[in-house]
């Protein structure tokens, strides 16, 4: 699978699982659909960006760093949105979200197929 596609698939799957794990936080169960949708979209965006980066830059350390930053920034944006009661879930969102970015960053570099160079 090419790096961008792998990033998209992994981002979507991990984002979906990340969203579903909100079920373990009883206070937000009423917002599950929104959380799962938001988390999946966040995963897709992160996967797309990280996959694109992996296609451009072939370096596992840089890929992991980029994934970590993208995961953190996107998770921060989500975490900055309060729930209906005005509560923020900084750690609950940022920590796993950053880790998901890191995993996608590593996976796209390690397992994604590099594009075949065009011959003249």
């Amino acid at each position, binding site marked *: 699978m090419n790096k961008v596609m792998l990033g998209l698939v992994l981002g979507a799957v991990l984002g979906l699982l990340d969203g579903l794990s909100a079920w373990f936080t*009883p206070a937000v169960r009423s917002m599950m659909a929104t959380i799962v949708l938001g988390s999946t979209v966040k995963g897709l965006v992160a996967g797309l960006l990280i996959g694109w980066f992996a296609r451009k830059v072939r370096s596992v350390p840089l890929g992991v760093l980029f994934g970590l930053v993208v995961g953190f920034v996107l998770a921060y944006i989500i975490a900055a949105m309060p729930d209906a009661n005005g509560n923020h879930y900084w750690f*609950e969102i940022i920590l796993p979200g950053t880790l998901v970015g890191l995993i996608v960053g590593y*996976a796209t570099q390690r397992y994604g197929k590099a594009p075949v160079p065009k011959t003249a």
Partner: protein
Amino acid sequence: MKTPDDATVARLQRILDTPELGDGRYELGERIGAGGMGVVHVGLDRRLGREVAIKFVRPGALAASDVARLRREALLLARLEHPGIVPVHDLGELPEGGVFLVMKRVRGRGLDEVVQGGVPLGERLRLFLQLADTIAFAHAAGVLHRDLKPANVMVGTFGEVLAMDWGVARVVAGSDATTEAQPATPGGGPPGTSAGTVIGTPGWMAPEQARGDAISSGVRMDVFGLGRVLGMLLDAPGPAGAAARTPPAPLRSIARRATAEAPGERYPGVPEMAAEVRRFLDGERVLAHHETPAERIRRVLAPHTIAIVLIGAYVLVRALLFAINRR
């Protein structure tokens, strides 16, 4: 009369041991090596202005069979053009009889010396595979080395691996030694390798060689030698400061199969043996090794250690957050 001192005697001996090379094209320098039959000196090719290595039969030990063997080695090396084999530039006649061999001057160290300095396992296997590829090439050209040992393997300054000392090598029938070996024409083997003659180095030669059968097992004889070399490489120390590790069991199994007592139980050829080492390096199952379920799991998961750790970290974070939220 005054008795000459040891240094003088040694100098005179060196002069006596250094033959005249005839037409003056080559200038003989210091001695850089010696084997059972010949000595090797560094030399200068005056015509081309380059340094060379010159091998000739040890003076005083000159026998017709040794001269024939050196001549044979030259002809044999001339047909083996490979990056892992030192090329022969010239074959000359000594004025007092005998021949000398002019070869490329190679700078490097013996394989045993290199690995005793502490080399990572992956690098040791890379060296082994280079040697195996060279021997496989020789077999495809119909030549058996028959004296594979670390002292006969040199690692050049650029990391290139060279199979040295083809003095007891043997040409077998046809152009491919990978088929069942048959002695070639009378000129195909070195003098003195008729049935019953022991050819090789004790401790490194195949059991059938030690019994005086230096031809019937064909390439499996060199497979045995390579198995012994692999065993030595596995036992060599790792890099300084690294924890001492037992060599991986699959590699031990490869060396064990290659050095089986019965030639028929060894690998049928060097490419098959090299393929096993490559399988190990690629994380695939080594056919000579019966792996336990635990070994299989370790082998399959080993290339994905980082991914597993990352996923584990994610699950751990999730579990911790869950535990905190439950309070």
